[in-house]
């Protein structure tokens, strides 16, 4: 049998990569609120008078587009982190 001499590679690497990915998803979940905060702080640097003021409609669209983006992002992250929460929360039941 040649199988016995095979390098023990693929399964472990697969596991490691999955663990690595999951860690990065957690990192993303941690920085997501920071992203939201920064994006919503951007109106602070918009000029308030003179030329180049942002029209109300555009400002409104900006705020709500960011909002929608953040909701989608959070939805995606919460979907990816489903396993994590399940694993942790069933200890209480």
């Amino acid at each position, binding site marked *: 049998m040649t*199988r*016995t*001499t*095979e*390098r*023990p*590679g*693929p*399964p*472990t690497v697969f*596991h*490691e990569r*999955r*663990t690595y990915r999951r860690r990065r998803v*957690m990192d993303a*979940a*941690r920085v*997501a*609120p920071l992203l*939201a*905060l920064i994006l*919503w*702080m951007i*109106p*602070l640097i*918009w000029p*308030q*008078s003179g030329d180049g*003021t*942002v*029209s*109300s*409609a*555009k*400002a*409104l*669209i900006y*705020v*709500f587009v960011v*909002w*929608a983006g*953040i*909701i*989608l*992002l*959070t*939805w995606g*992250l*919460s979907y990816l*982190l*489903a396993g994590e*929460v*399940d*694993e*942790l*929360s069933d*200890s*209480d*039941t």
Partner: protein
Amino acid sequence: MSTLNLLVAVCVAYVLFLFFVAFAADRLAAQGRKAWLRSPLIYTLSLSIYCTAWTFYGAVGSAARNGFEYLTIYLGPTIVMVSWWWLLRKLIRIGRTQKITSIADLISSRYGKSSLLAAGVTILAVIGTTPYIALQLQSVTLSFSVFAAQSDGLAAQDQAIVAFWLSMGLALFTVLFGTRNLDAKERHDGVVMAIAVEAVVKLVALLSVGIFVVWGVSGGLTEALNRIDASEFGHWHTDRSRWAGLIFLSAAAFLCLPRTFQVLVVENDDENHLRTASWAFPLYLCLISLFVVPIAVAGLDIMPEGSNPDLFVLTVPLALGQNGLAMLSFLGGFSSATSMVIVAAIALSTMVSNHIVMPIWLHLRPSGASVSGDVRAAVLMARRISIVGVVMLGYLYFRLSSGGEALASIGLVAFCGLAQVLPAMLGGMFWRGATRLGAFAGLTAGFAIWLYTLYLPSFGVGTILPMSIVENGLFGLAWLRPDALFGITGMEQLMHALLWSMLFNVVAFVAVSLVTFPSPLERLQAAQFVNIFEHSTNARSWSGGTAQTEDLMVMAQRILGAGEAQVLFLRHARRQGARGNLPAPTPDFLEALERELGSSVGAATAHAMVGQITGGMAISVEDLMAVADETAQMLEYSARLKEQSEELSRTALELRNANQKLTRLSVQKDAFLSQISHELRTPMTSIRAFSEILRDTDQMTPDEQSRYASIIHDEAQRLTRLLDDLLDLSVVENGQVNLNLRDGTLRDALDRAVSSAAIGEDGFQLEIKRDFGKENIVLHTDLDRLSQVFINLIANARKYCDAKAPRLAIRVMQEADRVVIDFQDNGSGIAPDAVDMIFEKFARVSDQKAGGAGLGLAICRQVMTRLGGSVDYVPASRGANFRVVLPYRTALAAQ
């Protein structure tokens, strides 16, 4: 039927509907059918308790007055919800594992279950929430008056009546559904269900009005946006500090408001719901705020100048003749107000009864809480009274403030007050060094500054704070003016108060925490809170996901040996049908591996080692204890082994010594036998020889005969003496000797011994040194035997002392219960290896000086034993020193 009457009828019907919903939900919960009652959707909707009538009506008003500022109130909570992974999850886990019942309970629990902190937070919450409840009552009465204005108007006293019956109805609802049970986790299924229904009503109402305004009035989305650009707020314009400050404030309030904390943490049934709420609640907030600006713009367009923009949501549909829509809008506002009052009353009453009423009640009762049922009833009663009290407090506040502009701004004022809890709360969750005194200092500083710079001025200048203080500062100090602390002017009042209160709060909290030392309970709770995820996971079976088979292989090789480990892993890989020679780390395999390792290093150690590598679980206390047990057992075993081996080596040493002694004795015995046979043969030979001469010689002179006969006689005497000694020893040894006890002095015995020993002195003189004064001791003993011992010792000294001028010192010492007589010569003494032999029979120190049979000292020792004393060889600085000890009973001091 007038519009007002219809409104009242709709209100009553709606309230009855809510009662039914809550009742049905409680019934379902009681039957255990909680599945859909406790779904992520219900949880998300219940979070909308954050959006009160103040936001329902006020957002449009705020947009009409201040432009986009209203958005901040929704952006803050959105950011908090997006922070679910690192913030809310932890908060909820803490709340669930620590059985937290309110925000005051959380703070108190974290800081060593401090009742003072709990009471402080409760008071802060009551002060901050009461005006808020008044605000809800005001919004309902205002909306009533809008409808009433269409018919015959609403008098002031009628407004008061509406507010009164509304608050009574809300109190009744809250008492009915909020205090049904004393569930440990304080969950209220009926209330939560009703809140969720009201959340839907709110959203649908606002969306309907918005859609009507955008598509029905403005004529489409693009048109609506154009109208916004064309309206008076045309361009983006906000106060920058307020934009940032209000986002922070609303985020803080979302975490700290008693009612949001109640639904977010206390009523949470499953951490998984948070995962859905993390995006669904921001969506709810987004939808709620979506049409606010279009409604405001439409209101400003349609409504006459000077009309209250806070009521545009209601007045715009009414003005356009949409009575049904207006009714729906009214119900939305009504829902916002009622749900807020209900949940705030539940949260506050829990806090008031748990942290203020019950401690006082238990303190006042002399016997304490001895009967459990008693306390239960008391808690329920306290909670009911608290609910009615809180709602009535809100009503009173409403009546006293008589509505008006002052009340409208109270929302943000309350936010700012409750945000003072935030540093202590977040600090407690993420910083183990936060202490009770630190939290207390921070809360006090923040609360005091908030009270002075924002809350008291909010009643209007001159009502509570005198005009003089506002103009000249406290105590006439200009830098203590409530609107310009430290002389920094020009800041807007709310931001001014927020900045200083939070700054002093955080600085005091951190500084005092750094310098104080927490109590043991605080430190325990700190560890529990900060490391909640390590503490709250239960021991579970191995979850293979993260286990690293290669690492396991390395470890197994170290413990089992390379060959065995590879065989084991290969066998399991085959069994799993894996392609490589490493099996997947399934629970089965891990258990088998653990067993295998356990046979080498012990079960607990193996479990801990596998656990460390798989990372599936932290080592539990039980594991550590098991490891410690095994280690202790091994230590005990090895200690026992060590003890046994020490004992064995001790025994072996003794045996070796005994063997040496026996060997030496045997040598001595052989020497003695040859000696005694020589001693016996010598006289026997001369006796035989001279007796033959006497027999065979005929011519012999009488002189010769006499000489030969005396030789024979002497030799026979020598033989007799030798035999006497032997006999004497055996007699003394067998205890057959008769002691001839009589009185006499030690001096006499010594005199006799010295003179006897001097007989036969041939040539050299032994100088004997004595102290006669001390020898006057009367003895009652066998003096002859004692003298025999002395003679022996003196004779030995003479025989063996090898000094040029031999000297023997005889010293007598009288002690309490014995007399000690030392015989010390100035010779070279006895060799150390011979010391233990000299009292043995037939022992002689050296063969050359053999003058006797080697029985002397053996006889001495036997005699002294018979006399109740002892004779020993005592090592001395020089020379041989024999010590004779006589017991006191045989020694009497001389007169």
